[in-house]
């Protein structure tokens, strides 16, 4: 196998091409080769969800994904959520509700929550809790994250 491959992907709406080792972690490709450091590493073993990104619309832990697996794929990271400097509704709600404290889980949490509301636009509180259970937060106790997601999904009313 070649030492390096040319990896081509659509990253946050832009075609990007980069020379990487085929088994480099997608997380490292994003952070080191493409210098998109919004995506974080919290554990390196797919437990914490801080490195969550979307690959072809699927939520993945980018620390577990080899680069070769995203060849030709569409990848969305936290940097792709705001459009033209305007925060997405979820990002704005996280600011308004103090959904981000230390902010380290926030990029992954926002990507996961974006996906959750795409699949399930009006979730119950339990559906939000289950949907985000793969993203660990040590600061908030999750209440304010729940508030932020429910503000966007259900105009603030929890079910």
């Amino acid at each position, binding site marked *: 196998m070649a030492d390096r491959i040319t990896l081509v992907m659509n990253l946050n709406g832009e075609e990007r091409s980069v020379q990487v080792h085929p088994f480099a972690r997608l997380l490292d490709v994003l952070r080191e080769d493409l210098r998109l450091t919004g995506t974080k590493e919290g554990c390196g073993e797919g437990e914490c969800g801080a490195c969550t990104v979307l690959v072809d619309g699927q939520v993945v832990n980018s620390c577990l994904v080899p680069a070769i697996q995203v060849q030709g794929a569409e990848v969305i990271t936290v940097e792709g959520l705001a459009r033209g400097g305007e925060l997405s509704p979820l990002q704005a709600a996280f600011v308004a509700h103090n959904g981000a404290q230390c902010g*380290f889980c*926030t990029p992954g949490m926002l990507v996961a929550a974006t996906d959750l509301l795409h699949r399930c636009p009006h979730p119950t509180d339990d559906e939000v809790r*289950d949907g985000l259970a793969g993203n660990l937060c*040590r600061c908030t106790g*999750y209440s304010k994250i729940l508030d932020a997601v429910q503000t966007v999904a259900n105009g603030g009313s929890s079910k």
Partner: protein
Amino acid sequence: MIGASAHRKEGRAKVMGTAIYTDDKFVPNALHGVTVRSQVPRGILKGIHFGEGIPWAEFTIVTAADIPGKNLVASVVHDQPFLVGIGEAITHMEQPILLLAHPDRHLAEKARLAVSLEVEELPAILDIQASLDLEQVIYGTHNLLKEIRIQKGDPATVWERAAHVIEGEYFTGAQEQMYLETNAMVAVVEEKDAQTWVTVWGSLQCPYYVHGALKQLFGLPEERVRVVAMEMGGAFGGKEDYPSVNGGHAALLAWKSGRPVKLIYDREEDLACTTKRHPSRSRLKTAFDAEGMLLALETDFVLDGGAYATMSPVVLSRGAIHAAGLYRCPHVKVHARAVATNTPPPGAFRGFGAPQSLFAMERHMDVCARKLGLDPVELRRKNFLRMGDTMATGQVIREDLDLGGLMDRALAEIGYHDKRAAHAITNQGEGPIKRGLGFSVFMHGCGFTGSGESYLASVAGVEGLADGTVSILAASTEMGQGKNTVFSQIVAEALKVPFDMVDVAEVDTDRVPNSGPTVASRSTMMVGRILEDAAIGFKQALVQQGFLQEPYTADAFRAAVARAVESLGSVKCYGQYHRPPNIIWNDSTYQGDAYPTYSWACYAAEVAVDLDTYEVKVEDFVAVQEVGRVVNPRLAAGQVEGGVAQGIGWGLWEEVTTKQGRMINNQMTNYIIPTSADLPRIKVVFLENAHPAGPGGAKGIGELPMDGPAPALVNALEAALGPLRLDEVPMTPERLMARCEEVANG
């Protein structure tokens, strides 16, 4: 502004992913550092061997022999070496021995594994009892890192005449802070004009602690050391003392290599080698009269302090002062010891000794209520501290304290009496689910213990900028708690200007004064108060020098600041901590005002236990607290919710499993912290009672919520299951099953 839920200053950067944490810092030409650690708990280092197959000539290697200054980490006690030299003592399994750096981090990791150590092993002490029994003397003459005695009256005169004497023994386990961002440092060392200049950027709570450690490590004057706090991905005490160690390591590699160095721990290393909450053992003996009035309390409180002192002396101090809880008691004796063991040293963790001793006390109160045949609510109500009462250290309660009212509010919020009656019926059923309600009532001292704030003599200031806005100069760091926002609110309120005209300066020791460490629930109350004074001084200076006339509009203020900066070049005003005259503390007798004031709380929990699996579900949780005036209700609620979540984790799930003193479940896969699916919505209530010592009446809040959940949960388990030996946290399903089987087996 005080009392408003202003949005987090750095919130937008955090949700956009543009906030720069230490490992996000782009550092061209950087080497990657790794740490070679001991693999025995105790011994003498005899040799270091570099294995085959690694291009060692490409590596920067630092050993103890390279250290230019003192090989001791500056801390409360200077006892911990940065690295162990040949012929020197190894005292725990994760002890740093030497450092390596290489441009390729994968190769650096391979090289770390290729180093082998030759060690003469010695027998190790791995737990509290072995240390107290002096099976081996591993520290000083008696294995004591610190010993404290507090006495009021004399309990020995009471035991004989008391109607009831009740004893109990309680244990708490280690706990990992599990900040989402692991410990991380970037260092650059420059040689300019034949002088060494050290700069460290890192994930750290206390820039001036790291600054002090680097000065001693390199033997440099203060102006040649610079420490910058990057955006921090959580800390909870875990980045209070440890950054002095890894900050020093990164700087040593940068100094020897002449290149920038990144030293980023992966999760397994972070969990195994960095500080945790101290494990504890408490033995309580209490005397009550026939009506349930507390007559005497004696406690023997022991912390496992690990191989070096780190923060143990001060953690022990806070634990000892909180050990008698918030009850009036004429005769109290506290004997507190932190003992040395051959384990990686624990350190600071939110609560700082108080969660351990308060777990014992608040659990013991429920045990006593059962033995006395009293309702736990009424037993506490009879014995609460009130205004004019004296605590164990002789501190007189000077505030109008209504702990009964606080407790009643929490019990009403959770529906205590109705639910207890309902559970009594439903728990009779055949099904495996049993429910129970429990609560705890507790306090947390605000700021440093005893004379700590006087010794710190913290300084903070405000600076006018050329655009007319105001910048806050303080070394207090943002770790997610909301310091940037709360400080800005306090200063905006004092200056009577809008929130968006104030922001915090980057925390860089070249720019900001030493406002003390970001610990001990002290930032809002202590540093906030200094900033309030500095802001008022700043405004008065503008008025006195004719730049500003009162009353003024925001625009007039902005124009005045801009004019002042233009004509004077720099406009700054500093404030400094002044001990309130009525706060007196004696370090040698442990008598006096241990804290300027306390925050007070009652937490109540409802649990459901599944007797088939021993799984415990927390179905409801209420947190009622009096924390003075609340500066930012939404951020404050976030502090409480997060602290409660950590407390629930400590109480039920978070178990540090060790082998030879080393954590072996050092992964997020097998060290279990609460997920969103594990927690109920936590109901948070603030009862406001402005306190004169804090800015706008605010008291401390950060640590308080860690103290209450564990005893409330275990008390709830007893309410659900009946009398059991529920004397320990975490009360994991395995432990709970064993306790139930003890009863079943008689």
